[in-house]
């Protein structure tokens, strides 16, 4: 384990979700950075910190969460950074992005997918799980 608390990068264009998720992760002992702009979020990524990303799906464009995730995973330095995608449209008819299999998740460059609103405990548990499994192959 790194001596520093793990870091969570939040990306959402809805101020409430940023504030909400910040409170959840801060209560879980994480250091939180929140962004409403994908470019700023990418710029804030650092190799030296154990990091997790929680990002909204529908921001400026319908699928900007996907393109953000693709950009992150496409960078060899951040390939292992776990990404949780949260969306209010996951189960909406006509816009069914909800992944049903591990392949679906991999295809959207995500490690987990949650419908909004997210249950705080479930989100923290998933974050913990993803961070520890991301850590294992390293050491």
């Amino acid at each position, binding site marked *: 384990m790194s001596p520093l608390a793990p870091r969570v990068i939040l990306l959402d*264009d809805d101020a409430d979700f940023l504030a*909400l998720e910040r409170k959840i992760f801060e209560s879980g002992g994480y250091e939180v950075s929140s962004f409403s702009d994908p470019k700023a979020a990418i710029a804030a990524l650092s190799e030296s910190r154990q990091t997790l990303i929680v990002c909204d799906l529908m921001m400026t464009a319908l699928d900007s969460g996907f393109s953000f995730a693709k950009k992150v995973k496409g960078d060899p330095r951040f390939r292992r950074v776990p990404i949780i995608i949260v969306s209010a449209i996951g189960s909406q008819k*006509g816009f069914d992005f909800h992944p049903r299999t591990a392949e679906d998740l991999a295809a959207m460059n995500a490690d987990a997918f949650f*419908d909004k609103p*997210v249950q705080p405990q479930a989100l923290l548990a998933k974050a913990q799980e993803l961070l520890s499994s991301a850590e294992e192959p390293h050491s």
Partner: protein
Amino acid sequence: MNAQSPDRILVVDDELGVREGCRKILSSEGYDVVTAGDGKAGLEQFLERGPFSVLLVDLQMPRMSGLELMREVRARDEDIVCIIITAHATIDSAVEGTRQGAYSFIPKPFTADELLLSIKNGLEKRALTLNAKHLLAERERRLLELASERSKCNTIISCMTDGIVVVNTEKLVVLRNDAAARILPACAREEIPFPLAELQNTDAQEILQLIIDSTGGPMILSREIALGKETYMVNASPVIEPGGETSGAVAVFSDITALKKLETAKSMFVSLVAHEVKSPLAATEGWLNLILSGMLAKNPQEERHMIERSLLRVRTLRSMVNELLNLTAIQTGNFTLKRTPVDVMAVVREVAAAYAERAVEKRITVTVCDADGRGDPAENVLADREALSIVFSNLVENAIKYGREGGRIDVRVGRCGIYATVSVRDDGIGMSAADKDKVFEEFYRARNELTANIPGTGLGLSLVKRLTELHQGTVIVESVQGEGSVFTVSLPLLQS
């Protein structure tokens, strides 16, 4: 031919006795008789006094023989009945005479009855021939008319905007119109008929085939087919002859691309509404979940803040539902304006007063300026006061939301030609040209770093536009990113 006038007979014989005998007999029967003494004279009479129904002609005459005369006459009138009178009634001359077109022979000497019978038969034959000719001509005329009817029909079919393809029971494409040739490139070929299998459209082929193969009663098959960017509805039905027999199948291709687009737009809109409703609900639920989760240390102030955030989102949702209902009412024509003479300035002042507190929170100065120079307040537009209030409220609210902290908002009421104008100017974040183009679209919101924390439904400006247009007015926006925006509403002035 006139049935009332007597038949005219030309008698040509070099024997005066025969000529005059014939004239006497025939005239007494009511025929109109002309005589001539030889072939030449006969031809002259024919040319001068024709036409004749019958030529009664001797074979052997000076200057021009009977056969020669017959040739000349028949060349000019093929329907004339030629009857030969001759003393030389040999087989040879008879054969020669009929070969030249003579109808019959009367050997000399002959009785009056023999002559009359011969003439009567000849005339009957002539009547039959003429009748047949008349019928033939009539038939040809009918055929011509029919052909022109058909060509009219063909013209109409080829001018139709829907594509038409007709297939016979042998599964050959026997007819296709111009539209069909445009829709299905395989139909554009010159040679028709061609096999249905070469239509190169599986769906159309299949339903036409099904129709032809069906033995049951009449049926109609429909299928939606996509061809490039267009979508067509293909309806196929059997071609049933008057006798009830199926002679083929006809397929009509109707372009339903616009309908499909509308359908897509509608479901997109529904999805969008669902998403826009779900976001504030999810945020509210998220806050309430967090409060109830007990994860956070007890902090009444923090809890209050979270409840306030929830309340704000619920209020946004409520106003969105209201706006949505108003928009739908306008779109479906169920929004009835109660138009009365309204003083625009008075409505603007009311709206400005209602938003004064909100402006103060952001330290924004709102000024209302009467640029009309009317001085006295007066009703100057015919409008629904409530609707105008919604329009100006939306514009002022936006100006505050997107305005600069500590900035200013100028509301200017004036006139331009036959329009009363209200412009709302802020010195806030402004918008990009791309945002400007879409700002009146339903649910469109400029999404960027600066707008992320500004609540809104994305419906306010759509409503402004719709309501303004219901008043035969217009709304336009001018904006410079980073400098601010001006929204100007123009409403027709009340004609005094």
